[in-house]
């Protein structure tokens, strides 16, 4: 059960600001600050500009971590507070931390590399070295929240958020933890930005998922963290569950390091697994949060998956990447929190900038304005570069047929 959510995003910090921005269809895509993006050929990103680490972290914490960890820890603190928990109540070996990312502390490594390149080995500051490593994201959070169980990073490219949350749910179902503070974080950084430009994947101005004239993705940054706990643990401490993590489908295309499989067999299977492991049929899905990156190949493949799963039924679908850009490792974690909002408030967030339907993506896209609708069970797609498919069902508490073992079969 998810009992608390925390988010650092380009459209708002914290649950309420984020929910309000989603419902308004606010765009967080702005000109990049901090490096000369224009010189790289693109100028826009979903950069988090309102985040001041000092507002969320102590001076000592800020000193020992880079921006990615700062955002992750801030989101974790918000989630723990939202869950009505404290480090004292969470302290112990039955609390774990599982965090997804693609590049983790990218700014720390950039500083180290630049010092090395400019001044040779003697230019590298010894004290900076231990601050590098994606391993550190959950370590910093565990220190702050009292977790003494598994501390794990799952680097899974742009599916990392779902990987982390899905594995955290498995960890609880397997009886290996009572509480898992889980989610993902990613920071915007120059090398990554130029890499996406070089892959010719970046749109110049906007990200328009499923639109006929879509021109690619816009990259972004942020963090989304949730407190996930067993039903029994939540009940014991009187916490109100916000949503339940249902089945998790995981497959690998094993096809190409950046292109999706043209037949989308792996991603279709991942969706099917997520639904079957929830003990439901596709008919039960009310809304789909799309991976929807805005690239030609991804959106077409995802549309095919939706047709294969739902047939003629047009399930409302939306991509928040139109508002936030693609926050990469963090994307599906932030989007999971948007799914929690949908379940709690019956609001489907819009795909903004949606102008011209694409016959190849013949979907019921929630265009430009949020839509009210039934929201008992939703699907969160994450179909990443490298063919990493990770799809999760989220539902209102106690809606999915109980109880399930790890395979999704009735226990």
């Amino acid at each position, binding site marked *: 059960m998810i009992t608390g959510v925390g988010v650092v995003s380009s459209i708002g910090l914290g649950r309420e600001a984020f929910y309000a921005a989603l419902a308004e269809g606010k765009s967080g895509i702005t000109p990049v600050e901090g490096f000369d993006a224009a010189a790289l050929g693109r100028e826009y990103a979903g950069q988090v500009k309102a985040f001041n680490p000092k507002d969320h972290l102590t001076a000592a914490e800020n000193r020992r971590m880079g921006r990615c960890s700062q955002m992750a820890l801030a989101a974790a603190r918000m989630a723990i507070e939202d869950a009505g928990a404290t480090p004292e109540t969470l302290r112990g070996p039955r609390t774990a931390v599982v965090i997804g990312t693609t590049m983790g502390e990218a700014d720390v490594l950039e500083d180290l*590399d630049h010092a090395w390149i400019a001044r040779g080995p003697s230019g590298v500051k010894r004290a900076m070295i*231990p601050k590098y490593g994606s391993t550190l994201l959950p370590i910093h959070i565990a220190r702050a929240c009292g977790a003494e169980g598994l501390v*794990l990073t799952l680097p899974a490219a742009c599916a990392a958020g779902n990987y982390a949350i899905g594995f955290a749910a498995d960890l609880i179902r397997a009886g290996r933890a009572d509480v898992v503070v889980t989610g993902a974080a990613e920071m915007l950084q120059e090398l990554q930005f130029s890499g996406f430009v070089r892959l010719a994947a970046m749109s110049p101005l906007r990200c328009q998922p499923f639109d006929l004239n879509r021109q690619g993705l816009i990259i972004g940054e942020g963090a989304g963290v949730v407190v996930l706990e067993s039903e029994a643990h939540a009940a014991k401490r009187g916490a109100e569950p916000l949503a339940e993590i249902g089945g998790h489908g995981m497959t690998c295309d094993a096809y190409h390091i950046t292109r999706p499989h043209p037949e989308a067999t792996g991603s279709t299977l991942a969706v099917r697994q997520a639904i079957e492991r929830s003990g439901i049929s596709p008919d039960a899905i009310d809304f789909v949060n799309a991976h929807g990156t805005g690239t030609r190949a991804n959106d077409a493949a995802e549309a095919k998956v939706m047709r294969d799963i739902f047939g003629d039924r047009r399930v409302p679908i939306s991509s928040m990447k139109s508002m936030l850009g693609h926050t990469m490792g963090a994307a599906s974690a932030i989007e999971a929190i948007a799914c929690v909002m949908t379940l709690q408030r019956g609001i489907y967030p819009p795909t903004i900038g949606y102008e011209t339907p694409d016959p190849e993506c013949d979907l019921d896209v929630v265009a430009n304005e949020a839509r009210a609708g039934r929201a008992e069970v939703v699907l969160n797609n994450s179909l990443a570069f490298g063919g990493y498919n990770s799809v999760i069902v989220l539902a209102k508490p106690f809606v999915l047929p109980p109880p399930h073992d790890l395979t999704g079969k009735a226990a």
Partner: protein
Amino acid sequence: MTPRLITGIGFANALGVGGADALFAAMRDAEAPLPSRPLVSFDASKYANVAALEVPDFEPKKWLGDKGLRVLDRLTKLLVVAARVSLADAGLKADGAWTTSAGDRVGICCSNAYGSLEAITELNRVAKLEDARYINPAKFPNTVANSGPGYVSIWEDLRALNVTVSDGNCGGLDAFTCADIFLEAQRADQILTGGGEAMSEALYLAFCKLGALDPTATTAETGATNGVRLGEGAALLCLETARSAEARGARVLARVTGFGTSFVAPEADSSLLTFSREATARAIRSALDDAGVAPADVDVVSSGLCGIEALDRTELSAIDDVLGPDVAVATPKALIGETLGAGGAMGVAVACGWLAGVQPKPVAQGKAPEKVDTVLVTSVGYYGNTSAIVVQRA
């Protein structure tokens, strides 16, 4: 935990490249500790200390052919080779084709601590010295830590889950706990489980600057060193359920029967690096409990002792706390070097050799029995994280 079976090994490390039999033979023949060799994967002439244990004469072409290697980084090549060998060793593939299993039921769960370091550093160098617009897009995917296992899936047609885990030195063992859960959830029938880490100048420089490298470049007889000898390599073990191994008549090398992990934060707010005796003891106790094994039943510890004095002292004290001062503690890193995210998996692979009758060496403490039935594998992280698993005779 429900015991999981190890039915194949693929390794590439200082002892060579190959499957279970090659590893066991190399362990038997190796001089312990293994002498350091000059570094070849980068120009190390500007460093005073070049004690290291690279994969000797690593030739990916020999295993993978000529095509498609250009864009792969060193870690990816090590992993693909280890995966290919492991699949054959486990009897899942013969002459490159699936035998009893199919790709959609085989997955990979693989740790690395600094997997993308070499790729990011190389591209940062191009961006800084030339122009960011010149970075090679074909090499950009290597900047994510999961790209190595991603390529393994593509090369070897592994279409069930593909999971990269990162928990510093402990990731190589955590990969086993993750794979156990994935098997329980029936997400795959077989999972290549383990880790990889590649030698790179950036990694070497980091350890050098931290003053962690062995200044003498030599080792004492016990295998205890005056600092770390950086190693590299990949170890991927085929993990599966007893039912699946039985159904396909697989050769069983060992059983993984228990897992434990623990994290204890440093007391000082300003500290980042810490080695925790309490966390290590707790991880060992939970692994033994999980396996239903009494401390007295542990024949030998496949330890993480690495030559950092404070870390080694912490680990030995924790082992002493739980298993007493007489238990045999072996030091696989004296043969393989410090392979970080792969270290735990190397420790498990070596443990399979001891179960198969290879005498543990070198041993830093105690005396290993002639016949080894139960091995505890430990990994101590740099940040208060620790993991342990129990590996037993099949």
